[in-house]
């Protein structure tokens, strides 16, 4: 029977949670890289034993790790992320220009077909690629060199490139998202990029049609319908039906349309999950109730999923990379909280169980379906 491996990054190390296809019983291993911030781990779709991890601390900077045996053992690989050419400057919080400075790797996206190719989204925002299993990294500088680059401004979490989506049928097409610049698309394998933010409305921006400056928190797609994108923005849940050419709001009846993660059901492309939190100034669930909201209509109509989730005195957050789905049938949904819980739903969100309660604050959760 196939199974699931959850790769969980936390503020103080990584954890690997595994289960068989029933997803009833879980084995918990960790912490790996104890004491380090693990922003993200992700396995190669082309080789389930190949896993990449981003490891960092404020003291020692960035380290990259690679496993070739399904997250059992790890070897450090290359950690040199050098911006291409003269890095130039972007906009700082106070409106002045600030030099581009590498801080950390936020997100790893392995190639869909080649285990040795992996993309890294970094802070300050840039996209890097390795074609040798993480030993060396090269910037795809066409993104950062976009004419709007000097206008990009960090969100509260930094100027981070946090989302990378690879089109499953057209490897030349990729989507990325940057806080607080917006979403971008390439149709030529990363050589050139253009903003895809038409239709986003960010209340603080006087120019409603501004090309960049939107605090996109996360984008998700179902691989069977890759030109339909769902976005959790700073405020607003958005949808695009044309690969990002235009967006429309689908927040509908959500109690709050502020949040960080968004995920799409593995087999139902119109089933979408978000975790609303109260506001930009209060990153906690409304009313102290941890509720995942599910739309089965591609947005606008949302239902609260509460079975197994705390419905009083709950004030945790779910960060942008901390929600994931598996590929099993029925589809499983998973998320981790800043309170250290990792919740699993093997039935598409109908019911939830905490696999673990007391991990360090969870930064990321990736569900890997095992053959």
């Amino acid at each position, binding site marked *: 029977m196939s199974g699931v491996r959850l790769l969980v990054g936390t503020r103080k190390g990584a954890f690997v949670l595994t289960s068989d296809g029933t997803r009833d019983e879980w084995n918990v291993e960790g912490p790996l890289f104890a004491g380090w911030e693990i922003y993200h781990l992700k396995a190669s779709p082309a080789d389930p034993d190949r896993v990449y991890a981003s490891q960092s*601390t404020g*003291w020692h900077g960035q380290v990259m790790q690679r496993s070739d045996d399904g997250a059992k053992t790890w070897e450090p690989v290359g950690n040199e992320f050098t911006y291409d050419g003269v890095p130039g400057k972007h906009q700082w919080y106070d409106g002045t220009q600030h030099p581009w400075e590498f801080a950390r790797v936020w997100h790893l996206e392995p190639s869909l077909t080649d285990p040795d190719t992996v993309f890294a989204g970094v802070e300050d925002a840039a996209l890097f690629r390795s074609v040798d299993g993480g030993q060396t990294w090269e910037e795809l500088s066409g993104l950062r060199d976009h004419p709007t680059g000097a206008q990009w401004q960090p969100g509260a979490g930094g100027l981070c490139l946090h989302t990378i989506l690879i089109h499953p049928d057209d490897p030349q097409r990729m989507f990325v998202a940057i806080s607080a610049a917006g979403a971008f698309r390439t149709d030529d394998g990363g050589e050139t990029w253009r903003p895809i933010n038409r239709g986003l409305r960010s209340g603080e921006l006087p120019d409603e049609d501004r090309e960049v400056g939107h605090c996109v928190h996360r984008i998700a797609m179902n691989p069977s319908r890759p030109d339909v994108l769902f976005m959790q923005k700073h405020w607003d849940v958005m949808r695009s039906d044309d690969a990002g050419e235009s967006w429309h709001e689908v927040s509908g009846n959500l109690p709050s349309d502020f949040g960080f993660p968004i995920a799409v059901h593995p087999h139902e492309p119109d089933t979408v999950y978000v975790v609303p939190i109260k506001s930009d100034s209060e990153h906690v669930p409304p009313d102290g109730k941890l509720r995942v909201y599910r739309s089965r209509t591609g947005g606008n109509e949302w239902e609260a999923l509460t079975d197994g989730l705390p419905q009083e005195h709950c004030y945790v957050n779910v960060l942008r990379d901390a929600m994931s789905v598996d590929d099993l049938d029925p589809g499983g949904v998973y998320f981790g909280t800043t309170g250290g819980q990792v919740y699993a739903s093997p039935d598409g969100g109908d019911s939830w169980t905490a696999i673990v309660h007391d991990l360090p604050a969870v930064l990321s959760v990736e569900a890997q379906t095992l053959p």
Partner: protein
Amino acid sequence: MIRVILPQHLRTLARVDGEVSLEVQELPTQRTVLDALEASYPVLRGTIRDHGTAKRRDFIRFFACGQDITLDPVDDPLPNEVAAGAEPFRVVAAMAGG
């Protein structure tokens, strides 16, 4: 031999227990000792000094013979006791964060 004491995270990363002993062919300075350290343990590149610029990371300090020598010029000779192996060169992760 130059003795180097690393902070815990770097000992784990380099997979060493206790002190590290290094042959340093040139005059022992911060720069030459760290060059030798990184040559012996490439995994430490970028974790004490930045890639490219070799600039010390902000929360790293260097001690020798009970003195904080972090801000000494990187090409100044280390104390004789360190050069003779009687005292270690300490790489310290500064108290910061949580």
